[in-house]
């Protein structure tokens, strides 16, 4: 038996200019030091310049009256600047929330159409995607505003589409559900019905598991739920009604009315972003390994089952991160509303700057708010993503 002896490591530490730990620490100190020095230099220039020009460097202006008017809002000019910023945040979120929902719906529809077996449908969807994806979103928004909505008839001769949609060159309005007096009662009955349906569902599952008899749980609990919802809706004389918009004088009453600017922003962002989402949907379905579908077919699954149980769940997992990225883009692109005069965050910031509020602070607030919105959406998305990800060993 041979024993190999490892030569003993030299005692003590290497000299500092050879010591990894010292070198690494030194490199980090130098890097951070250089960054801090550059930032300090820029900050020093900034404060010096502001002092020379007599611009305040604090945030006291936030409490001053804003002296601006905001259309489509009960904001008063005497309210402080900080309130105006909050109105901007609200309007930005209004664009983002409605835009995200509509984009997901339209994007999925177009993406599925791109995979259709029907040549005409497939090609139409492809043209839609390739046209919209390759023009700037700002152009789409400006086009929607000046070439579509501003060319609509004046409010006196507004176009009424089946009582659901009223279009004029000043305001657009869509029908909206309104809650009646008996809404609470109806909600309670529906809740009881849902609980019952869940119980029956569980019972049928148990029976089926024990005896092997078909469970028919969709039939059983579905019909119960349907009867409860529809029956109580009729019995309570319509707890939720549709409010139809109509032109009254020089305005629109009923439904939800919105300015042309808002309509243009949402319309433009939705059709632009949906073209990107459609590509992601198509790509993810195609990215699912072919063998998966073939294996499912070999197991005897029908084409619908194949899609629902095998392909789509995997495609969804692939699609989620890039789709969230697109939704973040949509949220950031809501700042393009500035070009059509809709009072969201960026547009209001510009207006407030023009009202002699200090620009540097306003811009910093603007950045901070966008970062908070982005981070919140990213965090939510990460939670969803983590729950959906495959758990690998």
């Amino acid at each position, binding site marked *: 038996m041979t024993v190999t002896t490892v030569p003993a490591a030299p005692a003590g530490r290497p000299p500092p200019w050879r010591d990894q730990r010292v070198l690494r620490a030194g490199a980090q100190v130098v*890097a951070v030091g250089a960054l801090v020095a550059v930032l300090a230099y820029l900050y020093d220039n900034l404060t010096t310049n502001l002092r020379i020009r007599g611009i305040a460097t604090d945030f006291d202006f936030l409490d001053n009256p804003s002296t601006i008017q905001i259309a489509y809002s009960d904001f008063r000019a005497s309210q402080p600047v900080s309130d105006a910023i909050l109105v901007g945040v609200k309007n930005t979120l209004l664009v983002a929330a409605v835009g995200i929902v509509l984009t997901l719906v339209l994007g999925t529809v177009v993406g599925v159409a791109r995979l259709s077996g029907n040549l005409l449908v497939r090609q139409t969807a492809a043209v839609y995607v390739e046209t919209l994806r390759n023009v700037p979103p700002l152009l789409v928004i400006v086009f929607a505003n000046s070439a579509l909505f501003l060319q609509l008839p004046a409010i006196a001769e507004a176009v009424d589409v089946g009582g659901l949609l009223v279009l004029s060159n000043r305001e657009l309005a869509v029908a909206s559900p309104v809650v009646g007096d008996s809404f609470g009662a109806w909600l309670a009955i529906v809740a009881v019905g849902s609980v019952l349906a869940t119980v029956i569902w569980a019972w049928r599952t148990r029976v089926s598991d024990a005896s092997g008899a078909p469970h028919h749980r969709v039939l059983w609990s579905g019909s119960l739920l349907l009867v409860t919802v529809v029956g109580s809706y009729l019995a309570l004389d319509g707890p939720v009604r549709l409010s139809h918009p109509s032109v009254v004088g020089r305005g629109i009453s009923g439904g939800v009315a919105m300015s042309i600017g808002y309509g243009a922003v949402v319309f433009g962002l939705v059709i632009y972003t949906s073209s990107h989402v459609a590509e992601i949907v198509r790509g993810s379905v195609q990215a699912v390994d072919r063998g998966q579908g073939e294996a499912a077919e070999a197991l005897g699954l029908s084409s619908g089952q194949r899609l629902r149980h095998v392909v789509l769940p995997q495609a969804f997992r692939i699609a989620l991160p890039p789709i969230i990225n697109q939704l973040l883009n949509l949220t950031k692109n809501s700042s393009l509303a500035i070009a059509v005069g809709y009072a969201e965050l*960026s547009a209001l910031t510009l207006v407030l700057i023009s009202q002699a509020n200090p620009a540097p602070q306003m811009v910093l607030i603007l950045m901070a708010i966008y970062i908070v919105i982005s981070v919140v959406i990213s965090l939510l998305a990460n939670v969803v993503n983590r729950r959906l990800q495959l758990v690998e060993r």
Partner: protein
Amino acid sequence: MSYVALEPVALEPPAHVTSKRRWLRDNLASTPLNAALTAVVGVVVAWVLYRLARFVFVTAEWEVVRRNLRLFMVGQFPADQLWRPWAAAYVLGVVIGLCVGVASAVAAEDPRRLAERSASARVTSRTRSVGSGLRRFWPLVLFVAVVLSLIRTPLPGLLLVGLAAAVVLARMVGRRLPGLARWLWLVALVGVVGALQVVVAAGGVGWDDWGGLHLTLFVTVAGILLAFPMGLLAALGRRSSLPAVRAVSVGYVELFRGVPLVAFLFIGQYLVVYAFPSSIDPPSFLVRALIVIALFESAYIAEIVRGGLQSIPHGQVEAAQALGLGTLQTMRRIVLPQALRNVIPALVGQFISLYKDTSLLAIVGFFEVLDVARSVPSQSDFVGQGLASITLAFAGFLYWVGSFTMSRESRRLERRLGVGAR
């Protein structure tokens, strides 16, 4: 008793014969439902196409675009100086043709491609290559056709044809010079700087007075060129083993990706002015806009490059270290070449994205394509005629041609580089 086939039985796959009729039926009317879908979509598409054709050929008054074509292309560039942008276009065209030619010559020498080629037929008739060129660049051909149809004088048309010829010629020269590959970056640099000088130098027009498509292209190219080194640095920092460097890089990238470009243009307008020492005059607004655009883009480029770095298996680094390469050499000779090759399509995508984003300059008062389209309908000759749809459609077409061509070329490149495939 058993029977064993001693000769392998060669069963041909069932013949896959599809007649045109059969193909049409499969694709348009495989089931009654599908046929109904075809009918409904067909009617809608036909109606949209009819309205579109009517708009383009009958109702639209293209006079407003025709009279302002120069504004769309070069903004308020003085008419007697127009030879400068043309000369710059020729310089750039020749350089691009040369680069493409050299690149394809190098690719042709690649042994893998050589084997591929000798396997397939080598016959390419001249007419076929012209046809495939038209098919490949049909958006550009459409663009030239549209511009020619809007122009009454022959000179721009001749110059455009000459430009196309110059590009093709330069490409042919490039194919003969594969040895130039090592100096290609120098050729590209000289080309870009030369084109810039042709426009600016000796009584030319400074970039603060540029406009239209000219400005759009300048901002796009300058933005990417400025952003790339910074993005590379941030990506490397994010992959660094030093925690402080990593934290700074992550913070930088996330900060710039979380805020819309509009907000950065405001920063360029209101904040960057004050960041320069009070002793010197702050640079012009276009330079400030370029600074913020480059910072903004670099964060996105950093994320793309990081993806490329992550796609390189660690074995590559280990092999390099086993060969005795240092950290810097490993990065420069082993990791980066592979990583960057993998992300070329994504970088082209970012380039397209910036090309479209330059339209945002209209918001902060630059006279670029979108702003031309917005302002032209209020000229005294055209005001109040609702011509915005025409000018905006034309602007959209300009953006679409560039962006669609680049994305098609990028997909082609992706296939040729074999990204994601073996």
